[in-house]
């Protein structure tokens, strides 16, 4: 069957794409998506590790489930904040949001 490392590589790749997205997206929503990618990379890792190392304990699965749940909550809050910004500034382009600096 497929070796563990393939999954890990997939996870790593996904993680990097997520990070890149986070860094490169101008749109706050886009960044949020990048974050989601990162979390999914994590999930892949967790599941893979669970399956290959401790299939008899559910730790990995449970962890993954929690991550998804939290991801959802996080996204909700994030979107709320983005909307608030949009209300006051009419933009979701993060680099325009720079009132606060030294």
């Amino acid at each position, binding site marked *: 069957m497929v070796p563990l490392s393939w999954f890990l590589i997939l996870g790593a790749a996904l993680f990097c794409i997520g990070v890149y997205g986070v860094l490169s997206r101008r749109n706050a929503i886009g960044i949020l998506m990048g974050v989601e990618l990162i979390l999914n990379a994590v999930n892949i890792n967790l599941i893979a590790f669970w399956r290959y190392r401790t299939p008899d304990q559910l730790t990995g699965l449970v962890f993954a489930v929690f991550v998804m749940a939290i991801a959802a909550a996080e996204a909700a809050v994030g979107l709320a904040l983005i909307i608030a910004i949009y209300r006051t500034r009419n933009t979701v382009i993060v680099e325009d949001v720079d009132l606060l600096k*030294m």
Partner: protein
Amino acid sequence: MNLIGLLSPELILLATGLLVLILDMAFHGKEGRREWLPFVAIAGLIVFLIAASFLWGTHTSLLSDMMAVDSFALFFKVVAGLSTLLVILASWDYFQGKTPYEGEFYGLLVLAALAITLAAASTDLIMVYLSMEFLSIGSYILVGYLREDPKSNEGAIKYFLYGAVASGIMLYGMSLVYGVTGTTNLAQIAQVFAAGKLTDDMLWLMLPALIMLLAGFGFKIALVPFHQWSPDAYEGAPTPVTAFLSVGPKAAGFAILMRVFLAAFPAFQLDWAAVLAAISMITMTLGNVVALKQTNIKRMLAYSSIAHAGYILIGFASVALDSPSLFNGVNGVLLYLLGYLFSNVGVFVAVIAFENATGSNQIPDYAGLIKRSPWLAGTLFVLLLSLTGIPATAGFLGKFFVFAAAINVQFYVLALVGIVNAAIAAFYYLNVARYMFFVPSQEESHIAIAPALAVALGVATFATLLIGLYPQPFIEFANQSVRLLGVF
């Protein structure tokens, strides 16, 4: 003690938080402010503290080793309770006319406190993650609480984005840890390493894992270079929230940092201690020197709190739990946090009082404060002295212990950088004092302090001096709390 008993503090907080939210909702749209809402929250917090005090001395774990009930957790329960209490007092009439949703604020604050207590108690990576996210999400909302205020929003969004990514990275690290050890329970992780049956390539994975964890914790504590969200968030957030952020999440971050690293990764102490020492030097230096130039007191305090994170980290970087001396590092961190809690929140309370009266956060506007309100100036000065680390104040005790810890493990350089920073810090704290006392102001109008603020200020100042002058009980408390479950 049964499960309910052991969990009672958390449950009480949960109940209080929900109760406040519900009450707020129930009475929504009614005329006038609901001044009594904070009372509910305060009452709840007091009950919480009392309940917590019953757990003194109990050392056990529950929820299948997800959570610990130990002195360490207890200590942070107290920290969380006290800081939240003070912040609620501070925000009493801050929101007047600023937002219609005042009630929720208190609810959220209480729940954030709950998050802190959970974070400090969690002994499993999953639990760590959950509690941290709980705290983070709460914090995001609090920072962005003034929806109409663009600055508030901006602070929130930056905080959020940074936090989301940071937790993502941390999480990736956790997944690796899990992968290597096959467990998420801190104690078991430690056992795995102790057993030493791991292959090298497995161990190799631990390094990125640890670093990623560090990134996550560093974000919470606002360690350089994971600090950059904090000035913006601090400045943007409503001042009471800033006060809370500068203490609560920091404390939680340290709690988790210490518990995870001490409980799960003692095997790697040499590695992470070195990294933490380096980070702590950078952190305090950068925080202090950047603070020098700030003219907005909130921003100045933001950087000063970064610097303080650096000092605190000295203690943990030079942790030596098995050393015969009293200065094992951890108790230094705890004492520092305790003193810092009162001093820093106190300073913020004073800032809020000033802001309420003048609407300004600019340091030059503090000119002639001694004339306008001697007590405000006096107490603020004492608190600033404490932050500077002058003896007879709480701040000195903390510095004393962390420096002692550094010397104890012969981290002389670390201690040296520490004291140099302490001297630099005096510049900007004294600068505020200079305006308050030396510079005459054209504005002579008296500044009235609302009773709630007065109480908060009084408590903070008193506690600062008490800890400074009679530290014995607090030291014992800290020494007790050093006992983490699973660690000796």
